[in-house]
C-alpha cells in the first residue's frame, strides 16, 4: 500500500453519544439543521423528505437505524451520493462535526460479536485518541438497499405499534 492512499478524510457525525465517520468524497453537501417533512406509512428508518435543489430528497433517520428513540424533528442532514446507483439521499443525524484525516491502517474490522444490523451498517472502526469512530458506507445506507435487506423491518413494526399505543 502506498503512503498517500493511506490518508483518508472522513466527515465526523454524531448520533446519541457515538461518533461515526463517512468518507468526504461520498458526501455531496451538508445541509445543516433542517425540519424533515414526515411521510406517513413510510418505514420507520425513513426520517422524511426534505427539499434539495429542486428535488425531493428522501432522508434516512440514522437514529432509527440504530434503534435509538426519536430526538427532535430538527436534525442535521447530509446529502450522500452513491456513484453506483446514482441515487441521492439524505442522512439525518444529531450533529455533524468536522473533517478528520485518518490513516487507513488504523481501521479495525467489525467485531465478530456485532449483531446483524450493526454488521450491515458499520464498516469497521478507526481507533482515535478520543475513542472509536465507526465508519459508515453510504452504499449500505441507501433507502432502497435498506428496504431490500429486511433487517430493519422490526423497527418498522415497532414504530407502528408505538403509534397505535399512543392512539
Amino acid at each position: 500500500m502506498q503512503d498517500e492512499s493511506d490518508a483518508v478524510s472522513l466527515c465526523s457525525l454524531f448520533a446519541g453519544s457515538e461518533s461515526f465517520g463517512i468518507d468526504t468524497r461520498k458526501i455531496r453537501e451538508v445541509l445543516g439543521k433542517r425540519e424533515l417533512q414526515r411521510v406517513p406509512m413510510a418505514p420507520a428508518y425513513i426520517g422524511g423528505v426534505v427539499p434539495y435543489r429542486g428535488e425531493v430528497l428522501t432522508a434516512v433517520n440514522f437514529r432509527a437505524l440504530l434503534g435509538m428513540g426519536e430526538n427532535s424533528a430538527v436534525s442535521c442532514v447530509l446529502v450522500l451520493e452513491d456513484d453506483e446507483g446514482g441515487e441521492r439521499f439524505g442522512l439525518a443525524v444529531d450533529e455533524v462535526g468536522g473533517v478528520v484525516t485518518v490513516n487507513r491502517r488504523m481501521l479495525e474490522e467489525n467485531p465478530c460479536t456485532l449483531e446483524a444490523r450493526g454488521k450491515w451498517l458499520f464498516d469497521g472502526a478507526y481507533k482515535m485518541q478520543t475513542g472509536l469512530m465507526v465508519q459508515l458506507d453510504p452504499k449500505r445506507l441507501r433507502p432502497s438497499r435498506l428496504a431490500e435487506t429486511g433487517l430493519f423491518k422490526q423497527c418498522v413494526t415497532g414504530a407502528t405499534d408505538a403509534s397505535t399505543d399512543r392512539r
Partner: protein
Amino acid sequence: MDDLTSEFIAESQEGLDRMERCLTELEVRPDDGALVGEIFRAVHTIKGTTGFLGFDRLEKLAHTGEHLLGSLRDGKLAVTSELISGLLSLLDGLRAILALIEETGGEGTRAEDEDSALIAELTALNGNAPLPVEAADAVEMPLPEVEKAEAHAVAGPAAGAASTMGNSDKTLRIDVDVLNRMMNLVGELVLTRNQMLQSNMEAVNFPELARRLDSVTADLRETVMQARMQPVGNLFGKFPRLVRDLARTCARDVRIEFSGQETGLDKSLLEAIKDPLTHAVRNAVDHGIEAPHVRVLAGKPAEGCVRLRAFHQSGSVVIEVADDGAGIGIERVLAKAVERNLVTAEQAAEMSEREVLQLIFLPGFSTAAAVTNVSGRGVGMDVVRANVEKVGGSVEVESKMGVGTTLRLRVPLTLAIVPALVVRSGGQSFALPQTALVELVYVPRREAEKAVEKIGAAELYRLRERLLPMVWLDRLLGLESQHTAEAHGFYLAVLEAEGCRYGLVVDDLLAPEEIVVKPLSSVLREIGLFSGATVLGNGALALILDIAATAARAGVKPMEEAAEGVALVETKIEEVEDVSFMVFEERAKERTALPLDVVERIESVPLTQIEYAGGRALLQYRGELLPLCDDGNLLMEMEGGGQEDSLVTVLICAHAGAGGRHRIGMVVRRVLDVSPGRILEEDTSVSGMELALVKEKLTMVHRQFGAKAAAGWREVA
C-alpha cells in the same frame, strides 16, 4: 451503438413516418407526383446511408423498393391498391430491420427468408403491364401476416405499434429560436441571482429584484413548456395507415379526416394518450362504421368517415374521435348491463341516455366477446378511461343512433404543474389534485356529531340526501389525530377518481396552489398512497395524495354500490323536478337562494378590502374587478359597526350572458345550506324575484342577477 448509427436510425424512422403518411395520401390522390417524390427520397436516403454503414440486408431491400418507386415516379406503373400494400409491407420490412439494428446493433440474419419474399413481391409489382392475376395472388401471400398482426392488435386492447417506439420517443426536436430564448432567460436568471447575492434583504432594490426573478422564472417556465409542446399532428400521423389496414380487414370503406393537428400538447402527455387514442380509432372503424351495404341502405354514403379533432378548451386539450357510424344502441347497452349485473332492471328503466352511455366505461362491461357482437362498442373502454385519468384527464362519450358516436378525451396541457388544493391533516400538509375534487363541505363543530351517520363501523355523510363514505385521512395514514373536530369542526373534501366517490375528512383547508410535481424515491413510491411531493409557497414540503389509491386503501369501491346510489338520487330528483339551490341569508330573517350552478366560490373577504367607486362597492378578485351586489345593505351595516377586521362573506357568481362571462359578488350574511328545491309559479306581486320551496320553506330566488351583473359591468367599464 455508435452515434452515427443511432442518428441514422432516428433519421430513417422520421423518413419512414413521412413515407407512411404520404403512402396513405397517395391512395387518395394517385396522381400527385410530389408525394411519390417524397416517398422515393425517404427510401433513397436510407439506401444511400446504409451503403456506407454496411447494412447489406437493409440496403438490398431499400434498393428493391427504390427501384419500384423509380418506375412509379417515371409513370411506368399506376397506383393501385396492391401497389400501396406492397409499399406498406416494404415500409414494415424496413422498420423491422431498423428496430433490429437499434436493439442488437446488427441487422441480423434470422429473418433472411422473409426479405426475399418481400423482394420477390416488390419485383413482381415492378413487372410492367397491368398486374396479372397470378401476381396479385403473389401479393396476397405475404399480406395475411400483416393482417394477422393487425387483427391481433384489434383484439388486444391498445396494443400500440411497439416496434416503431424507441429512439424517436426519447429525442425531441426543438426550434433553435426557442433554445436561444431559453439560454437568454437562463442568463437573465444568473444575472438576477448575482444581484440578489450582492444585495441583502433590506436593500432598497430587493423588491424589484424579487419581481424580476418572478418574471424571469415565469418566462423561462413558459419557454420550457413551449419546447415540450408537440403538435398533436405527430400523433395523428400514424392513423391513416391504421385506418386503412383496419378498414381492409373489416371490409369497411373508411376515410379519415383531421383538424387541429397544430394543437400543442406536452410530449409526455402525447405519449400517454397514444394508446387510448389508437384504441378509440380502432373502435370507431371496427365497430362504429357499418359495412358499406348497410350504410347505403341507411341512406348514408358508402364511405364512412372518422374525424379526429384537437382543440383547446379552458386550459385543457380536447381530442375528439367522431365517426358517422351506427351509434351505440342504448337498449343493447342496458340489456348487457342488466345481464352482467351492473345495474338492476329497475335502475335501468330510470336511467337517462347519458348515464347509460357512461356504463360502457365500467370495468365489468368490457370483456371482449360479450360486447363486440352485441352493442358494438366498449372493448376495453375502461382501460381507455383509466389511462386517460392516470394523466389527469377525462373521457366522455356521446352517441346518436344511426348518426354516429363521438368520444372525447380531455387532457391537461401539461403534467408537471397541476392545480391542487393544499389541506392539513394530523399536523401535516397534503396536496389534493383539483381534477379529482368535486366539492368541499365544512361541517361545524356543533353539527359534527349529527352529520356523521354510521352503518356498523362505516361512517357516512349525508350529502344532499346521498350517502357518502367518509375517509379520515389522519386515521388512514396513522397520523396522530389533532382532535380539531372538537375545536373547529372538520372539512370534507368530496373526491372522485376512477369511479369512486368519497369524502376525505381533513382538519383544515389551506390555499389552492399551482404545484410543481416532484417524484419520490422508490422506497416512498412503494407506499402507494402518494403520487409525488411538492414544495409549497412557504417553502414547506407537501405530499401529493393519490386519490384513487387512497380510495382503494380505504376500501371505497366503485361500480355497483356507487351506481345504485346515483340511481336513487336521480329518482328522487325526478319526482319533485328539483333544482339545486344555495340558500343564504341576505336580508335578516329572509331566506334567499341562487341556483347552485351559478355560484363559483364562496370567499371570506376582510371588510377593508372592499373598495368603492361611484357609489358602488367593488372587490378586486384575481385580477378582475368584481361589482358587489349588496341587497341587504350589509356592508353599510358592518362599516357602521366600526369593526375594521371583520370578514364579509361574498358569493362569487358567474353568469354567461351576452358578451361573455360576467362575474358578480353577492354579499351575504351567512350561507345556510345547499339543497334541492322547486321553483314556484311566478307571482306578479313580487317582481324580479321568484319564489321557491327549499326544504319546504319559502325562499326567494335571485334570477335577475345575471342582467344586473351585466349592467354593473358596464358601469364599471
